[in-house]
Every structure is written in structure tokens, then in C-alpha cells.
């Protein structure tokens, strides 16, 4: 493991890798600081810029963007009470009251340092858990793989915003999209309508750009030219409040551990990690009355956890090839563009990729803390970039990016269709993350489903005689049932009140 880790760090001998790290971090901060644009959209938009670029350089840029976008969301949350990402909502609860008390610099410094420590601790955990996880997964048969993919999908669909039923519909839409093209086993064209361009299936990058980025343009149009947000004065950034940070070390480490564990669970992600960590910290705090009124503990808990979840979400992605969040689903698409297939074999066939990810997460910490602190005033102003300009920029990059993916018009048409579809589905309350996840995992799911049946002479008992498969299928079932029952109970309670 140490030799492979050294291999990962050696990638940073290339100045291009450093360039990618800094570029990814800058773009990530930019995306994270703009309310409404999240890391998923950022990673999707960056994919076209990775065409023809070395896979290691690309992956470092993408990982840096993902982590920095989670950092960036906190800056606007603290300064203007406008969380750049959903995961920074809990940060705003205490960060903004601190700003109102004239302690913006202190709040920002604590949030950025907590984020950095969160990433640092969770990367250590990622290294310790991802490798054994991938070795364990090498023993999986097709039945287990099918079950695993179904669990990943079900958890994301069941736990996503909105109703679990809509999550299930989203999963169906994504899987249906994945079945378009030539059948992987016997080569029969399916659902292509005679269009030969669909024989290879729907191109992933234009689908990602359409669903995540172009649909967002239509939401920006709805908002119109927004009014300027008044930003608070930021002072005291140069001085690190050592005493305050020292007093928060238990909170930061505990939140980092919690964030990592929650991040590993597919579907849970950074938002849930920050809320849970905030609640746990409040529960154990000696000054719970300060929470919501300007508690540094609250800021540290939320930020350490949501950034720690970034490394947590990487564990199932790298070790099992199962993305656990919308952003890692987009990331898997970016890896596939580079010809990299995440999963257990990644660690044995191309160890430089996962270990460079680990190294970049660690090396990225001081870089991102520096960029975050040095540019805090600028990032706070980023939220004021006019929406019309962002809409035009996102749309322009989408079109050129989609065209560049195959240098034909077909991906452009696919992206436009997916953009409009994404807007309509979001209006319907159908989450997009399960669609992307299902599209990414669809082929693997179907192949393993059929392989499992063939290996068992066509008998279906393979899905209920293997203990591991049974456990996985039960988890998948519970992923829909539990949130469904909870939603039904909540509705009944509301009905009784009404």
C-alpha cells in the first residue's frame, strides 16, 4: 500500500498535475460560491475540458473541483446567508449570525480549517477502508454484483429529495435509457428506432451536461436578473483564531468521522452528513443555547462533516464502482470518458489512479485552505455574478462541450433533449441523481443479472439462496420501504392536524 501511495504522490512531480489541482480548486470555489450551482454541475461542466488530457491530470482536477465546491458553499453561507450548496445550509445557521456579530473572519477561518481537517481525516479513512473493500468485492459473483448495484441505486433513489416512488420512477427512466443501443450479449439493437447513432447507446457526457447543466439554465431564466446581495465586510482573515480552533478539535475530529461514515452510504451524502453532525454536536455541546445564534461549534461540525463526506462518497466509487452520490455518479462518467472503469480491479490494474486520488485529496488540503482564505472576499462577491451571464456561460460550454465529445451533432441533440427533459422532471419532483446513477450502472446491472441466471442454468433461486445476495436485495427493498412508510406517517399526522 505504501509503495502505491508513493506512486500516487509521485504524480505531483508533473507541473500539469499541480495546474489541474489549482484550476480545479479555483473552479470549484467559483461553482460552490454561486447559490444553485453545485458540485455535480461543476464536475459535469469540467468534463469537456478533460478531452485528450492525461487521465491522472483529469482526475486530479475533477477531485479538486468536487472538494473545493463543498468548501466554497460555506463562504456565501457565512457571509450572505446564502448557502452555495445544500450541504452548507447548516453552516449558514451559525455562520451568518457570527457575521452579523462582526465575526465573519473568525467564522470563515473556522469553516475552512474544519473543512480541511475533515478532508484530511476522511482521506486517511478512505485509504484504510477502500483497499480492503475492493479486495472483499473481488470475491463477489454476478448475483452479488447485481444486488450491490441495486442497493446503490435504491439507496440513492429512496433517500433522494421527494417521494421514494418518484425516486423509483427516476431509477426506471435511467435504467431504460441505459438499455438503448446494442444488446451487450447478443448484439441485437434495442430501442434505437433504426438510428445507427444510438447503436452504441446514449452518450453519457451529453446526458450529464443536459440533465445537470442545461436544465439549470432554464431555472436561471425563471429567476431572471436577480438583485445584488449585500455582502458583509470580512475582517480578521489573516489571523487564525488558534484558541478557538484548539477548543474545537474534538468537534472537528468527531464530525469528520461521522461525515466519512455517512458519506460512504450511497444516497446519504454531504447534506445529511452536515445535518446529522450538527445535531450530534449540539447534543454534546456545553453551550447548546448558542446553536443557531452564532456557535463556532455549529460551523465546525457542519463543515468538517460535509467535506469529510466527499472522501466517504469516493470509497464505494473507487472500490466497488458504485457511485454513492450525484456528484460521484457524474465523476464515474468522467472516468469512463478517460477509459477508466472504477471497481475492485482498479486497484490492481491501474493503482496510480486511486492512489493519485488519495494523494490529491491530501495535497489539496493546504492548497484549498490557502485559496479559500486568500480569496474569501472574492468568493463572497462571486454570488453577485449576474444570473443572465451565468446562464449564457453554462449554455455555451454545454453546447461546445457536447459537440467536442464526439465532434458530431448527435451529442448536441441528445444534450438539448436531456436538458429540457431534466427541467420537466425536476418540476415534476422526479430526482435526477437516480437517473444518472441508473444510466451509469444499467449495463453492469443487466449483464450481471443475466450472467447470474446463466451460471445457475436459468434458475431464479440464485437471487434468494446466496446469503450475500439476499442481504443486498433486502437492503434495496428497505431503501424504498422505510422512507415510504415515514412519508406516509408524516402525511397522516398532517392530515390529522388539518
Amino acid at each position, binding site marked *: 500500500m505504501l509503495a502505491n501511495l508513493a506512486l500516487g504522490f509521485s504524480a505531483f512531480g508533473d507541473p500539469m498535475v499541480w495546474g489541474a489541482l489549482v484550476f480545479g480548486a479555483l473552479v470549484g470555489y467559483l461553482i460552490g460560491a454561486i447559490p444553485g450551482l453545485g458540485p455535480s454541475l461543476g464536475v459535469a461542466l469540467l468534463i469537456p475540458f478533460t478531452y485528450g488530457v492525461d487521465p491522472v491530470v483529469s482526475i486530479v482536477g475533477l477531485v479538486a473541483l468536487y472538494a473545493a465546491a463543498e468548501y466554497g458553499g460555506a463562504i456565501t453561507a457565512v457571509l450572505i446567508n446564502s448557502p452555495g450548496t445544500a450541504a452548507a445550509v447548516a453552516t449558514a445557521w451559525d455562520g451568518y449570525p457570527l457575521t452579523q456579530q462582526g465575526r465573519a473572519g473568525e467564522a470563515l477561518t473556522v469553516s475552512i480549517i474544519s473543512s480541511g481537517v475533515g478532508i484530511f481525516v476522511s482521506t486517511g479513512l478512505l485509504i484504510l477502508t477502500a483497499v480492503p473493500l475492493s479486495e472483499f468485492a473481488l470475491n463477489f459473483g454476478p448475483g452479488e454484483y447485481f444486488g450491490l448495484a441495486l442497493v446503490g441505486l435504491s439507496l440513492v433513489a429512496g433517500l433522494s429529495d421527494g417521494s421514494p416512488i418518484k425516486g423509483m420512477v427516476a431509477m426506471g*427512466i435511467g435504467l*431504460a435509457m441505459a438499455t438503448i443501443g446494442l444488446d451487450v*450479449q447478443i448484439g441485437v439493437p434495442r*430501442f434505437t428506432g433504426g438510428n445507427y447513432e444510438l447503436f452504441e447507446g446514449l452518450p453519457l457526457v451529453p446526458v450529464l451536461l443536459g440533465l445537470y447543466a442545461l436544465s439549470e439554465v432554464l431555472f436561471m431564466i425563471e429567476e*431572471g436578473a436577480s438583485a445584488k446581495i449585500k455582502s458583509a465586510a470580512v475582517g480578521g482573515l489573516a489571523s487564525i483564531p488558534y484558541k478557538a480552533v484548539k477548543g474545537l478539535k474534538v468537534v472537528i475530529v468527531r464530525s469528520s468521522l461521522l461525515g466519512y461514515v455517512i458519506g460512504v452510504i450511497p444516497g446519504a451524502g454531504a447534506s445529511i452528513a452536515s445535518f446529522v453532525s450538527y445535531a450530534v454536536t449540539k447534543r454534546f455541546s456545553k453551550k447548546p443555547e448558542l446553536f443557531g445564534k452564532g456557535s463556532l461549534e455549529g460551523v465546525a461540525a457542519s463543515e468538517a462533516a460535509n467535506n469529510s463526506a466527499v472522501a466517504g462518497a469516493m470509497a464505494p466509487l473507487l472500490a466497488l464502482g458504485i457511485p454513492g452520490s450525484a456528484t460521484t455518479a457524474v465523476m464515474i462518467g468522467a472516468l469512463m470518458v478517460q477509459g477508466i472503469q472504477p471497481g475492485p480491479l482498479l486497484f490492481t490494474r491501474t493503482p496510480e489512479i486511486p492512489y493519485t486520488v488519495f494523494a490529491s485529496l491530501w495535497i489539496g488540503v493546504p492548497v484549498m485552505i490557502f485559496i479559500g482564505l486568500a480569496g474569501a472576499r472574492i468568493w463572497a462577491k462571486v454570488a453577485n455574478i449576474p444570473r*443572465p451571464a451565468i446562464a*449564457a456561460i453554462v449554455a455555451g460550454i454545454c453546447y461546445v462541450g457536447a459537440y467536442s465529445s464526439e465532434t458530431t*451533432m448527435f451529442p*448536441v441533440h441528445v444534450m438539448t433533449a436531456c436538458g429540457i427533459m431534466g427541467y420537466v422532471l425536476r418540476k415534476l419532483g422526479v430526482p435526477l441523481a437516480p437517473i444518472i446513477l441508473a444510466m451509469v450502472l444499467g449495463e453492469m446491472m443487466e449483464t450481471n443479472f443475466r450472467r447470474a441466471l446463466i451460471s445457475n442454468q436459468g434458475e431464479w433461486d440464485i437471487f434468494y439462496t446466496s446469503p450475500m445476495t439476499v442481504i443486498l436485495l433486502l437492503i434495496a427493498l428497505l431503501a424504498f420501504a422505510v422512507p415510504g412508510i415515514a412519508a406516509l406517517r408524516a402525511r397522516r399526522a398532517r*392530515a390529522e392536524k388539518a
Partner: protein
Amino acid sequence: MDDILKNDKGWRFQLGLLRGASPVIDLIGSVVLFGIFWVYLRSSLALPPPLNDIDIGAGGFPRLLALATLVAIVAMAISAIYRLLDRVPVSWVSVRRPVSVALTTGLLILQSVYFEQLGALPCVLLFGLLTMLACGERRVLHLIGVPIALAAFIYVVFVLALHVNLP
């Protein structure tokens, strides 16, 4: 539908805002999705049978998928009907600035049709300007400056750095 309107659970059109009751929207969405997946199911049934008894063939997985999704769509429709009849006040789905959204959707389609004929950079310039106008931008300097800067950025990154042959 009249009853629904009387009960304040139907459509309402205001200048700058189009909104409908969430269960009604869900019901319409369910019908559309049901139609799509019905066609998908029929297409999967038309796929060639498996080559041997131990495989489910090219259509087996899509058939299972279509059936499961149809069940979910029916559940979505039932849930929508239940919410319509329920005492809990309905939530609303709204489209702000619907005319601008419709215009931009048209612009996106036009851009995808004429991207190759017009050329990538002229397209970025023209549609960037139009998108900003649709989004409510009226400052001339911004309307001119942003598309030009964007086109220049795209030229430098995609053409000069990444050597992409843009139309």
C-alpha cells in the same frame, strides 16, 4: 376539473407566473410517463427471444424493468389522486416567467439545429446574447461583453489548447 378549480386545486395563470397544483401535475406526468413506458414495454416484447433456455434474451431485462416502472408510475398516480382528495392543503408547482422559459427552450432547440450551420463561435455569440436577453439582462455592455468573452474563452481552451475541430 371544474370542481378542482373551484376547490383552488387546479390551474392558475398570472402574468409572470404559471402554476398548478402538485397532485394535478403529478397526475399529468404519470399519464405521460405511463404512455412512454407502455411503448417501451411493447418494444421490449418485440425483441428477439433468447437463444437458449437459460438466458432471458435481449428483451428480458427491459421487460422486467418496464413492468416495475409501470407499477411505480401507477403508484405515483394513486398517490396524486389521494393527495387531491385529502384534507391536507396541496402544494403548488410554479413556473416563473413562463414566456421567457418557453422562449429559451425554443432558443436551445434552435441552437442545437443550427449549431453546425452557423458555426460554434457565432452560435455562442448569438445565442449567448439571446439567452441573456431572455433572462432579463438589459445592460448593453453586459449583453455584448459576456458573449464575446465567452467565445474568446471557448476559442482559447477548445481550439487552441485542446485542438478540438469546432464547426
